[in-house]
């Protein structure tokens, strides 16, 4: 296990395309459900314990060596929104390119060959983490952090929110990120059937509304 490899993978500057996505924050801002730092915290906390936990479970599963094909099928079943499925596969494809350059690995090569249009992002992330020598728990931490880091950065741009306040939200959520990562890693060690499937109805609903907007700042 390399702590530095985890920092490289989790860094927002890792060229995997995540900065183009708001994690549903753009739609929530437009709907008036996210207007200030408190709203951002509630939004991020909800994301963390739902889709964050679910994605962390998938990624931790891939890092633990569960069958990525099976995990990819589970990810499809956990995502009723075609806009979110497409975004996840697009992000998976982008992440795959960066990960293969960073940590050349036969597991990544095999996954890329099996899913030329992109496997789901958490499956690619877990496979990349495994290639980087990271375990399920570190991988789950990476997902938990990106689940809330993306919307926090986006909301600074969308609302002009004070970046110090946005960072304070992330810091306050840190203990819950640890809990989510631990739950995800524990589930992943028990196998595919134990993986969480926590979902967020408003994220599923608004993802389709957002995808239909003619002009938007973020891809999702």
């Amino acid at each position: 296990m390399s702590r530095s490899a985890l920092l490289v993978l989790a860094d927002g500057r890792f060229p995997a395309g995540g900065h183009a996505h708001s994690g549903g924050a753009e739609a929530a801002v437009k709907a008036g459900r996210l207007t200030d730092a408190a709203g951002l915290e509630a939004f991020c906390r909800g994301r963390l314990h739902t889709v964050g936990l679910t994605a962390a479970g998938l990624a931790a599963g891939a890092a633990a060596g569960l069958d990525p094909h099976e995990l990819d099928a589970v990810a499809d079943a956990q995502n009723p929104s075609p806009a979110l499925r497409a975004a996840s596969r697009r992000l998976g494809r982008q992440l795959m390119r960066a990960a293969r350059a960073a940590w050349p690995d036969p597991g990544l090569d095999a996954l890329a060959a099996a899913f030329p249009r992109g496997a789901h992002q958490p499956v690619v992330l877990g496979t990349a983490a495994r290639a980087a020598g990271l375990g399920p728990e570190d991988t789950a931490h990476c997902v938990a952090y990106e689940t809330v880091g993306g919307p926090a950065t986006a909301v600074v741009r969308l609302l002009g929110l004070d970046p110090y306040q946005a960072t304070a939200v992330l810091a306050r959520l840190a203990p819950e990120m640890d809990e989510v990562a631990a739950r995800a890693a524990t589930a992943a060690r028990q196998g595919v059937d134990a993986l969480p499937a926590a979902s967020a109805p408003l994220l599923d609903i608004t993802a389709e509304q957002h995808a239909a907007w003619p002009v938007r700042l973020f891809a999702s």
Partner: protein
Amino acid sequence: MSSAAPAAGTGVTATARITAGADGSLPVLESDGPFALRRTRCAVPGWTRVTVVGAMSAPLGGDRLAIETEVRDGARLLVDAAAATLALPGRTADPAAYALRLRVGADAVLRWLPEQLVSVHGSVLRARTTVELDPAARLVLREEQVLGRHGEPPGTLFSRLTVRRAGRPLLDQELACGPGAPGGWDGGAVLGGHRTTGQLLVVDPRFDTAPAPVRLLGDHAVVTPLAGPAALVTAVAPDALALRRILDAALADLAPFTAP
């Protein structure tokens, strides 16, 4: 038949069973515990109908209740309910468990259209619906969760719906809300202050060649095609009536109830 034998301070354990045959028969129709099952007359010919009559308010904390339903090859079964299901606090602090296990065979159809599940203040319920579908099965399934009776704060509800088709995952989603759920469930990402949420799932092999298009149903509901041959309506609403209106309109559109 009843296997219910509650010891003092613990809950009821009960499993009701339904098996429907292609000839319109019900080879198994076993009431148990709080679930009384009645064969009822179906307005549409060619269908078998069973109505779940809640013999008492249930589930209570500590109860372990289940309904198992098998729709054999070629059978057409409608299951509905006489009243909403109320998750209530029990004499123990233990959560209640409510499991629905549904199997639908080849060329069989199940319309599972119960009433709302109401999470009453102070209750803790784990609701688990698992569905196993033959590749040639059809399914219409509605789930509606109401967070608290009118004007009261909600209980704690963990609800998971898992559907497998030909052994492969088709839909797997869980929702946690109420005071015992992890934080953020009432924030802008999950329910955003809405007090009801529901899903309507329609699985039909015809969607393999002609998937249901994405359709927005107002601001708080959407029809989406799943990765497999199915369409899902996801909705949140301020109250049970508004939610039912959305789901009823989608039901009439996606899966009208007609004679075979």
